[in-house]
């Protein structure tokens, strides 16, 4: 099992100029671990990260879009797996932070925690490539390849909370930061 912040730190070492969309705890931690104007945290409602990322991927096919989704969030928008597979953006990398809980909402377990085969769902929906990682070494080893491959790619990251980082929901949904993101993306 990986710790989420360690997992993000590994990603930071491999990151080049990708757009990174993240939700809830991953988004909170991303703002501390890898601040970047191409971070997109403005998802506004639970479950919507995968759909925002699809809009970005379709709108900027020249940029890789990496999403750090939550398992509770994905369960709330499972149909988006089919929508994404149907739209088939080659630049879409859908990473799932599978921690088995609604961590932001009191750490209550998700239904069938630990027993859902998310990669099978993604495959059945039509994602041509899927991965599953439960240790940092494998994630670190494969990440460069994943960031080069044609998508949509689904990556299940089995994790648990690591170090605690301060939460700031106003920052996550800030219009000012969203506008900075738009400007940075325009120049990128």
């Amino acid at each position, binding site marked *: 099992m990986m710790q989420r912040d360690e997992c993000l730190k590994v990603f930071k070492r491999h990151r080049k100029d990708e757009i990174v969309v993240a939700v809830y705890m991953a988004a909170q931690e991303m703002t501390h671990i890898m601040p970047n104007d191409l971070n*997109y945290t*403005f*998802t*506004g*409602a639970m*479950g*919507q990260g995968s*759909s*925002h*990322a*699809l*809009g*970005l*991927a*379709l*709108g*900027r096919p020249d940029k890789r879009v990496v999403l750090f989704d939550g398992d509770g969030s994905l369960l709330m*928008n499972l*149909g*988006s797996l*089919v*929508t994404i597979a*149907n*739209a088939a953006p080659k630049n879409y990398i859908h990473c799932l932070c599978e921690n088995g809980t609604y961590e932001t909402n009191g750490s209550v377990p998700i239904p069938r925690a630990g027993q859902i085969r998310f990669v099978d769902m993604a495959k059945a929906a039509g994602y041509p490539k899927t991965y599953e990682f439960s240790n940092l070494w494998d994630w670190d080893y494969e990440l460069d390849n994943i960031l080069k491959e044609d998508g949509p790619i689904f990556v299940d990251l089995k994790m648990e909370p690591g170090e605690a980082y301060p939460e700031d929901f106003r920052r996550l*949904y800030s*219009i000012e930061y*969203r506008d900075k*993101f*738009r400007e940075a*993306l*325009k120049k990128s």
Partner: protein
Amino acid sequence: MADSELKAEDIIREIKKAGIHFVVALPDRVTSHHLLKTIMRDPDFKVVQVCKEDEGISICSGLFAAGHRSLMMMQYTGLLDSVNSLRGVAVEGQNPVCMLVGLLGKEPGVAPTQSKKYGVKIIEPVLDAMGIEHHWVEESGDTQKIVPAIEKAYASTRPMAVLIGREPK
């Protein structure tokens, strides 16, 4: 066909005039046959089909962040199902989500708020409560409302809805 009858080709012309390339859609009986199917065949548009309408609210917002204009087509039932996304993503998130919404079951020539159909009757009050601008398109001349409504949405980065009151031919 009466001159005042709503025509799909007029709506499509206005959508194009407003600079829309991406159309995000979940089929609606009022607009599917003449409007959505024609749009899907038109190479000027890129259609993204969704499984649930709230996905579309967010896809349009992602497209806006990437510098594109888009239109979300759905039935009024889908709009009601997407209220939380509209709240958080479109209104509070200040995203210019432009929606074209079919009012299935609305009686011809009757204002939506006067409809005997409960779901149709509450659409405008729901949008008013959320502070979302809306425009009723029922007859041919009403299509002139579409371009200014889209322009205003993008200028103000606020969502808006065009309510289609009868099946365009």
